[in-house]
């Protein structure tokens, strides 16, 4: 059973439906005990980092997620949920994250060339870093497969933990992981067949 953490941020309909579609039971919940009783956790999120991390803390769920991850339970952060896994973010000020993956979240504007639009919206190709073993998350997909992105900030200073990048005038972190903690900047639940294969792989970790 998968717990999709509900802390009042974002639309969880598609995530829940995509697990139903691949035949995996998932519940949307903000209750500590139910999250603890599941064997995998999804941390979703859209919007601004500061708001989201505050809501997560107010719900008391930041510590639950950290504790469960430290026990070794597979955790997948998606989009803003991935960004929350890092040490800190520079989105509208400076905010502390969950610190489960080393690195920080920085604006794409100023890093990507000026001719590129920000937010980065649309389908872009995944590239796996050379010389690293393939992430268990990507065992069923290919280098160059396309996934759907919507974001204005990205994870930097996290090279050792990067498991996939995408090219947008420069190389941008598309996914990162630290042991049992995984994050995708893109939306697997909106990335068609490729996305469903990634979610399925997460369920098999």
């Amino acid at each position: 059973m998968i717990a999709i953490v509900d802390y009042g941020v974002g639309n969880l309909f598609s995530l829940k439906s995509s697990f139903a579609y691949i035949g995996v039971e998932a519940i949307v919940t903000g209750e500590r005990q139910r999250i603890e009783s599941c064997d995998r956790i999804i941390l979703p999120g859209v919007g601004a980092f500061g708001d989201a991390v505050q809501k997560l803390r107010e719900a008391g769920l930041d510590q639950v997620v950290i504790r469960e991850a430290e026990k070794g339970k597979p955790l997948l952060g998606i989009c803003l949920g991935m960004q929350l896994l890092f040490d800190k973010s520079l989105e509208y000020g400076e905010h502390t994250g969950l610190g489960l993956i080393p690195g920080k979240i920085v604006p794409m504007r100023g890093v990507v060339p000026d001719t590129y639009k920000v937010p980065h919206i649309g389908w872009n190709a995944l590239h796996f870093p050379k010389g690293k073993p393939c992430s268990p998350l990507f065992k069923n997909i290919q280098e160059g497969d396309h996934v759907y992105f919507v974001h204005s900030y990205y994870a930097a200073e996290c090279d050792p933990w990067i498991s996939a990048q995408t090219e947008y005038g420069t190389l941008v972190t598309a996914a990162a992981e630290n042991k049992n903690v995984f994050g995708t900047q893109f939306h697997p639940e909106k990335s068609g067949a490729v996305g469903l294969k990634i979610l399925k792989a997460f369920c098999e970790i």
Partner: protein
Amino acid sequence: MITKRIIPCLDVRDGRVVKGVNFLDVNDVSSPIMLAKHYSEGGADELVFYDITASFEGRRLFTDILTEVASQIFIPLTVGGGINTIDDFDRVLKCGADKVSVNSGALRDPGLIPAAAKKYGDQCVVLSVDVRRVDGRFTVFAKGGRENTGMDALEWIRQGVENGAGEIVLNSIDTDGVKRGFDLEMLSAVCELVDVPVIASGGAGCMEDFTTLFTQVPKVDAGLAASIFHFGEVSIGDLKRKLQKDGINVRL
């Protein structure tokens, strides 16, 4: 590299897709679910559902359909038609829409875009504009293109983006339905003006029109069309393979 997007648009009335279609793999050509599946499996990068229902009962049918589509199709879904209030945003987002397209609703209530962008984020708010040349000036039309608002289109779009619209659908009434290609001049003007994604709509008659669009207006992000896909004149798979052959980056 980010790909150029191909987006079919489905008009829905009382829960059924209007405009006839004939596909070998689709038994019920007016079923939004079967059509959405057909397009998604064919390689559509996104789907737009346009609710043209007038009645309350029809609206309810639309959200039922949307829920069903969103539970089976895992690509971005945009919903438009009859979006006048934040409650309308809420109604369709809860049923699985990812983006909401506003048109006349934003003209009636200039506060709608900023309020929606604040609540759901810029990426969720699409400003759809129907534009026609009047005395050589790009002018905004309302009510499905029937009513001249007298407003300058470039100014309206600039304002919309400033207020939080995260994407623009530019529908040229001058080229719509003519099937002689997209309105390259109008699209270029808008692409120079804003730095959010711009989706071209109106005028696609054949595959070559998409190649022309993406090569002549390289800043355009996506091409949207309805009838050429629905009538089976162009299949999305064939179109994307042709675009790739022409050197345009697409998802295959």
